């Protein structure tokens, strides 16, 4: 479970620009929680705060009960992160990329190898596994990066715009994979600026704008809250009204 409580993070001179402004929400295990918001809403900053990459100015965030500032090491052992830039090593093979992270997470020997093999099979990248990742397509790169993020069987999985640049088939494959992980009881938190993406996949949606939470709920709850019949209209309304912004 990921619990975020009144998290604040500012950038610029004296932290005047609040990229994340008193954000609170909970992402339970066995659910997919979506962070939905336009570009610059603070989604990536929020994910980086939870991933212990940056330190909040105020508030707190916990992953499986561990504080992201005080128990940084414990948090890192429990999260798998797919960052916006996939960040693979082009001169290493797909398998070596995945193995590197597995080793850093303390896996070794046959346990590591069988885990890597299992992920390669699950993601359907067996024919790519022993090629250097240089020249991989967006979809192939994403699959390797996902496998790498999952190599230590993390409790919580953070994905920043995972469907960016993917074709329809890859997107569908990714959705199936994420649902499978949810059914295993994992806590999934993913960000997207594509509304269809979030509604198609998420059990719970956190709508962000200008670093603040505008609304939280299931798709149905958001529709009811705004009195709209389509998610797109509901989304526009949530982002557009001052009342929505204050919520």
């Amino acid at each position: 479970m990921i619990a975020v409580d009144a998290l604040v993070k500012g950038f610029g001179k004296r932290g005047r620009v609040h990229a994340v402004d008193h954000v609170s929400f909970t992402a339970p295990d066995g659910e997919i929680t979506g962070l939905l918001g336009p570009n610059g809403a603070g989604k990536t900053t929020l994910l980086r705060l939870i991933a212990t990459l940056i330190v909040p100015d105020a508030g707190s965030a916990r992953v499986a009960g561990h504080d992201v500032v005080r128990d940084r090491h414990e948090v890192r052992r429990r999260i798998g992160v797919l960052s916006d830039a996939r960040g693979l090593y082009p001169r290493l093979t797909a398998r070596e990329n995945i193995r590197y992270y597995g080793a850093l997470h303390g896996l070794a020997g046959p346990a590591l190898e069988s885990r890597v093999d299992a992920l390669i099979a699950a993601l359907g990248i067996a024919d790519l596994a022993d090629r250097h990742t240089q020249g991989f397509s967006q979809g192939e790169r994403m699959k390797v990066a996902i496998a790498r993020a999952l190599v230590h069987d993390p409790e919580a999985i953070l994905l920043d715009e995972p469907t960016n640049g993917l074709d329809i088939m890859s997107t569908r494959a990714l959705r199936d994979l994420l649902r499978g992980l949810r059914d295993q009881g994992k806590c999934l938190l993913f960000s997207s600026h594509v509304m269809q993406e979030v509604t198609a996949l998420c059990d719970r949606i956190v709508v962000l704008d200008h670093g603040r939470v505008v609304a939280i709920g299931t798709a149905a709850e958001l529709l009811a809250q705004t009195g709209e019949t389509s998610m797109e209209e509901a989304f526009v309304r949530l982002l557009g009204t001052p009342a929505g912004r204050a919520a």
Partner: protein
Amino acid sequence: MSSARAALARVGIVARKELVDSFRDRRSMLVILVTAVAAGPLLLLLVLNLVASQIDRDRELKLPVAGIEHAPALAAFLERQQVTIVPAPADFERKIRDGELDVVVDVDEDFAADVAAGRSGKLRLNFDRSRDRARNAIEQTQGLLRAFAAEWGQGRLLLRGVAPEVVSPLEIEVRDFATPQSSGALVLGLLAYYALFAALIGAMAAALDTTAGERERGSLEPLLTTPVAPLELAAGKWLALCVLDALVVAVTLGGFYLTLRFAPLPSVGIPFLFGFRQYAAFIAILAPLILLATAVLLYVGLRGRSVKEAQANVSVLMFAASILPVVQMFMRRKDPEWLLSVPVAGQYALLSRVLRGDALVFQEWLQAFGAPTLLALAALLLTARLLAKESVLAGR
């Protein structure tokens, strides 16, 4: 205890990955091979041949003389001194300017007449002193002419019943201790310099790739979400760079060893040996520099906002470091004691001394290891601190 072991394991994992990654960077490896490994021995061969050709010139002087028929006594003298007289070409002035001829003696038409009349005979000595290569020939010819004049003068005095000592109260005996060594000195400096150069730039490309490159690729961000701590990451990368740099140095020196041993070298009378013992001493002397150069590269590389910026900063740094031995080469004074503690300068001084065959005492080793090792650790800690800052993701 087990957490310390896990930390060490992670350092090893990072180091191994970085090494594999670096070795697969074919282009960078090729650049290293060409600049550090191949260029050194090639340059060495070139310099040795140059030195050898100079020595050959000194040994048998071929002296172009114009109008030798006017001075038969001079011709006889020169022949006795084993000098081969060749007729000077008509356009010898141009040939001297172009560097084709070193020195030409030009006998005045009226030489015989002047001498017969009791006046001084005139000779013109033509040369271009700005040419280093010509210097030996010039000095040799001047000496020969002076000797001829002295012999002739003494003969005249004897005819008049005067002892030659009357006009030459001073007898100067020249003993030059430098001769073959001075030509070898250039080779000495070159060898030491190239070894230093290899240690400085051996890991440069890999260091940039693993710092600024890692960030630019976007692989630093996910890496920092794994349990690897900043110090472990810095240490792992450092270790890999050290191994790589040490290999480059070892191969470069190996190239020198093989060149000096097996290449068809002209007999220059090199006043030193570069055998296995010198090879080992070189590696030992360069070890602290390898530690330091890689740690500094790591820090400077990580501070650059982009690979390009890091490259520019690193180039400035490397230029400054590699100019230091050149300054030393031109300083003719004996190195001061404290110089051994200065990174690069200290190593250069010690390398030169090993080549000269001087023994090094323990305290000098300590001095040459101390400062670079401490500085390397400081740079490593600074790198770890930088990696722990969130600003590292954006490049400061």
